[in-house]
């Protein structure tokens, strides 16, 4: 498998999805070597994790390059600036060298960053290629056309692949619309979550101010995610303005970093709700978990979200969710509120309904949690395994 990141060095959902999928596949006795462009200790024992790039580029991953199409500079070990093409070329050559000495049946590549390397492997080894699409360029660019250089690589990978995995119907449709790939070549395998895998909360929430305000009758709306155009946060802030007019005791907690960070802070102040919107920057561990759990409602207002794991994490930590209809997770989760990302009035209406009714909050969560505990990555593992077997049988024939 070719990937760009694994936890704990992930910038977002891509690394987590790769990790969980591989874990589910290895439980089905599939032997995986996962090839990364950087070297670091991941503490993973169920598969081999290989680093192919000579330079330590863990910082690359942190910088969010796996997602941000517009940020193509990165700092390598020798303090040189590499553009994304140089970076990909390095990875491609290193992967090509690695596979010369290895035996394997299938190459499975995650997202466009690994596609060039994947195509090289297919060329060398003449093995089936499965490309796994966690997002397409138009998602990352917030529904604009995005970077043409990235699109070129994406198009090539999608055309040359023997099979394409999309993480939702939403993503499948984007692949069809953006690249003219026939629907029959694309299979939807939803991301998931395993309830037993999530770190438990402890008794003391780290957000003491918010805990106090809640005891004074305030209610808290949370978003966790990268602050990029794809995530639709300016709309959430506009909705927040409308909510606060109706329900002044509402606070908004925005957890994450990204290129819109300062823009969003400024926007909140301009809207006159600077005191009601709290920004925490990027958080991990307890600070991250406690953000989910302090919320009365989690909102994912994404403009285009291939899957969207955060609402499921929120539900796992006791908070119901409002998600944009332009998300993959809205296809699998029934007991949540749904809104079109552009419909700011309706977003505000639904947020206001929850912050004004603990009963609605509790019922929503109770039923969402019942769905949540049923979720498992094993179903995804099963579908991918069947795909592997199908392609190997075809090869053998």
């Amino acid at each position, binding site marked *: 498998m070719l990937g760009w990141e694994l936890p704990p060095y992930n910038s977002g959902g891509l690394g987590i999805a790769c990790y969980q999928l591989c874990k589910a596949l290895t439980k089905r006795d599939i032997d995986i070597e996962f090839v990364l462009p950087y070297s670091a200790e991941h503490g993973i024992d169920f598969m081999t994790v290989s680093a192919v790039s000579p330079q330590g580029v863990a910082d690359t991953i942190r910088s969010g390059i796996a997602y941000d199409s517009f940020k193509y500079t990165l700092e390598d070990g020798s303090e040189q600036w590499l553009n994304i093409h140089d970076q990909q070329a390095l990875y491609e050559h290193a992967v090509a060298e690695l596979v010369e000495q290895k035996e394997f049946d299938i190459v499975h590549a995650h997202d466009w960053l690994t596609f060039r390397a994947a195509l090289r492997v297919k060329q060398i080894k003449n093995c089936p290629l499965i490309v796994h699409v966690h997002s397409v360029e138009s998602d990352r660019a917030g529904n604009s056309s995005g970077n043409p250089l990235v699109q070129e690589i994406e198009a090539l990978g999608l055309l040359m692949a023997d099979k394409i995995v999309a993480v939702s119907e939403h993503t499948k449709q984007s692949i069809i619309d953006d690249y003219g790939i026939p629907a029959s070549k694309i299979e939807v395998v939803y991301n998931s979550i395993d309830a037993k895998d999530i770190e438990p909360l402890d008794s003391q929430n780290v957000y003491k101010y918010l805990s106090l305000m809640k005891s004074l009758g305030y209610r808290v709306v949370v978003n966790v995610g990268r602050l990029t155009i794809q995530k639709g946060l300016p709309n959430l802030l506009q909705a927040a303005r*409308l909510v606060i007019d*109706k329900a002044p005791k509402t606070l908004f907690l925005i957890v994450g970093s990204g290129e819109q960070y300062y823009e969003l802070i400024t926007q909140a102040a301009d809207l006159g709700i600077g005191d009601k919107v709290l920004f925490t920057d990027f958080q991990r561990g307890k600070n991250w978990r406690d953000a989910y759990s302090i919320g009365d409602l989690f909102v994912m207002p994404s403009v285009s979200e291939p899957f969207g794991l955060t609402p499921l994490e929120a539900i796992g930590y006791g908070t119901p969710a409002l998600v944009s209809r332009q998300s993959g997770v809205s296809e699998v989760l*029934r*007991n949540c*509120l*749904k809104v079109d990302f552009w419909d700011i*009035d*309706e977003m*505000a*209406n*639904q947020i*206001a*309904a929850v912050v*004004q*009714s603990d*009963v*609605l909050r*509790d*019922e*929503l969560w109770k*039923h969402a949690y*019942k*769905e949540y505990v049923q979720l498992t990555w094993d179903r995804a593992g099963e579908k991918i395994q069947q795909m592997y077997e199908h392609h190997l049988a075809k090869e053998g024939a």
Partner: protein
Amino acid sequence: MSRAIVLYLHVHQPYRVRHYTIFDSGNRHDYFNAAYEDDTSNERILKKVAEKSYIPTNRHLLELLEENPGFKLSLSITGTVIEQLERWSPEALQSFKDLVATGRVEILAETYHHTLAFFYSRSEFEMQVEMHRNKIQEIFGQTPRVFRNTELAYNNDLAYWADHAGYKGILAEGWDPVLDWRSPNYVYQPAYTDNIRLLMKNYKLSDDIAFRFGDSKWAEYPLTADKFSHWLSEDPDGTNFNLFMDYETFGEHQWHESGIFGFLEHLPKEWLKTDDHSFMTVSEVIDANESVGQVDMPQTVTWADTERDLSAWLGNSMQSTAIGSLYGLQQQILDTDDLALIDDWRRLQTSDHFYYMCTKWFNDGDIHAYFSPYATPYEGYMNFMNAYRDLQFRLAEKGVMV
């Protein structure tokens, strides 16, 4: 032995609350006026049901009444559906009047707004029953003598009330845990009452028509009038087969294509072939038979879903909050003497609103489809609560403390 089919059909449409947001609360009071193309448009739904169900079914029923002097039936028809028919389908309303004009159609008493008021406010309940009686007298020239409560929600208290209010009969579900070894196919007397009689729905036979009729996987499919009459004839028990169902069974729940109208057309002919077989209205069957025993129902039983209780309307905290909040405004609302405000408050009491907030089927995704104009129960609750907030706003405007 003389045996009667007691066919009783329930006609009702609620005033569905439109997509009504927190930004509408305090600004617009038109909770029930969805745009025509919306899922919650009462006008569109009423016209569709009138065209698909009421008008064709009444045409069939009228023919049956004309062709079979022995055919009779009973109807309950709520105030909220009569109002909507007056406004949007006078043709369908006229077809109901034509049925009643044959003299062989009996109309039952109930709450005007199809509410659960009995369980929340006795005075409001009595007012709604009176409103309904007046409306039925005005439209159909009949005075109902047999009572049916919303959703057939019944208990001993209700029977006691109906007895003292002078009704000769009352309807309830023929639920096995209540009946135990007894058959629903007789006339009973409710416990602790003096004069009133109890008719219990034979839900197995009723559901054969209302739910299973069009199901090609059902072992008895296809159900013919011949076969159905034969079952009744073979049944060793009973004087009366109480077939109670929603009117919309005909043409709406069971589509025209299922053959339901053919079944309806042949049933009187098949059943009346035998001399001592008859059709009776609810009053007639009570007059014709002695009570065979008392039925004690301290717990509320309804005709809905597998639990036969009120949990489909009041089972979750959104439902209990919504209905509790609404009845909490009773005194303030009535004190205003503002008829428009009072009417809106009563329309919000219609039990359907609370049913739309039911989460149990939405979650299970089992055989019960989530039967609602809203995508989710949460949406139903949000719209309702915003309408409730608007009632509060209107009270506050009048200087009433809320």
